[in-house]
């Protein structure tokens, strides 16, 4: 009797494990402030997030296959990062403000911002190998996606299908088109969103190592010092390449990440980026410690009097011996 019970438990466990490996989820992340995204003369109760969620569920009901779905409003960098790396998430739709512009002179204006105005465009590089569909519902989202592909930022996710528009986009219309595109992909291949039993062998350049990892020797340590107060989520960039991410934290603890040593050798500069613009005040970025065991040291870019230069971001420069 007991043996049968154990067998049953094992069987259920195996069944759950199998189901887990084939789990696939579609996630809608919206990052819009309803107060500032309400057409004029609408009632206070008019809420863009509720409208989008309702539309999303309506479109989902048209799909022939059953999908596990999740909606997260007011998504910020931490939610975006976690969703991009979630092994169960195979389709992600981001709805937020974006702009992609070049001027003829010195400047360019390119940003994808969350509801707090943080530029989170670099975070999309963290797309995990499980991701099959990424829709960027924001103005000119297609230009970002094309540029990332051209730069090879999605080379570790060769099967990733993307959707974005080159024109100015209305939130609900953009969502409808993004869902329509996904529906076409699923109609064409009913298993499109299903997880593959074996993950692609192509490794993401965006990869962490653990201290007990065999590959620890090829890694280098980046440590964000202890926070004395709530610390913003920060992206760690090299040029515009994302090499690490520290989620928002309100706990007093040091954060540590190991990244490929070769990444640091190629360019001797690291940018710690919160995404906040220059008019934002009082952003706690903490201090990075980078263990440079190949010689030299890393210094914060600052004035001769020791004032860090940069608002919402800090730059660390490698100084050779």
């Amino acid at each position, binding site marked *: 009797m007991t043996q049968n019970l154990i067998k049953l438990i094992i069987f259920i466990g195996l069944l759950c494990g199998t189901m887990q490996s084939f789990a696939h989820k579609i996630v809608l992340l919206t990052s819009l402030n309803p107060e500032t995204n309400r057409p004029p003369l609408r009632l206070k109760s008019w809420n863009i997030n509720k409208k989008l969620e309702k539309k999303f569920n309506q479109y989902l009901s048209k799909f022939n296959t059953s999908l596990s779905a999740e909606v997260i409003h007011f998504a910020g960098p931490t939610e975006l990062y976690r969703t991009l790396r979630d092994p169960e998430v195979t389709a992600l739709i981001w709805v937020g403000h974006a*702009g992609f512009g070049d001027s003829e002179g010195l400047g360019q204006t390119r940003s994808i911002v969350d509801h707090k105005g943080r*530029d989170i465009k670099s975070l999309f590089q963290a797309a995990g190998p499980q991701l099959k569909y990424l829709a960027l519902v924001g103005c000119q989202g297609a230009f970002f996606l094309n540029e990332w592909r051209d730069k090879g930022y999605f080379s570790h996710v060769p099967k990733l299908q993307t959707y974005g528009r080159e024109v*100015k986009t209305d*939130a*609900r219309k953009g969502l409808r088109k993004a869902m329509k595109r996904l529906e076409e992909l699923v109609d064409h291949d009913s298993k499109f969103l299903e997880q593959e039993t074996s993950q692609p062998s192509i490794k993401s350049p965006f990869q962490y190592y653990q201290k007990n990892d065999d590959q620890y020797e090829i890694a280098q340590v980046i440590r964000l010092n202890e926070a004395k107060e709530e610390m913003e989520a920060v992206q760690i960039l090299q040029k515009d390449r994302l090499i690490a991410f520290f989620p928002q934290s309100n706990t007093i603890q040091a954060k540590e990440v190991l990244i490929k040593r070769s990444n640091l050798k190629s360019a001797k500069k690291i940018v710690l980026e919160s995404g906040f613009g220059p008019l934002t005040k009082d952003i706690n970025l903490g201090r990075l410690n980078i263990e440079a065991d190949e010689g030299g040291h890393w210094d914060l870019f600052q004035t001769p009097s020791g004032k860090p230069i940069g*608002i919402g971001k*800090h730059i660390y420069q490698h100084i050779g011996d």
Partner: protein
Amino acid sequence: MKKILSTVLLTATFILSSPTQAIIGIATDSEATAIAGLALMDISQIWVVESRSTTRRTRRGGFSRSTYVTYRVITYPAFLIAGLVLLDEQGRAEITANLSNEQIAQAKLSDAEVAALKSEIEEVNAIKDMIASEISSVENDEQRMEKAGQLWTSYSEVLSEDTAIALFKLASLEK
């Protein structure tokens, strides 16, 4: 036709639901058509008719009330009229080192200056952000510009000489 009708309906809905303005209609269908066609452009105009009432004291000591209508043109961004939520973002102005050969030639930049600017572009943008933050409290345009110039001069000390010169040459081109 369906789009035009839906736009007219949408427009009428928001106009009639306005609690603060006694707007009673839009002038012509052709303007509504224009709104539908211009849904993703910046500006369109609509005529509105407003009904107003005034009360005044008469010579006999009583009160009289008169109602009149006014016609005026109001200008709204078309996307707001159609009830859309456009996801555009003005974007952060970033200084870029991706210069065309034409720009390099016009600004007479040397190879060393171009290389220096490319190498220090993150630092240049960090300085730009600092200056933007520091001048944000200056209200007068002229004073703000002057202050920015002073700050660029001051902060450029932490840049290499080649980068500072490249910036100066390019900024002179922009004028």
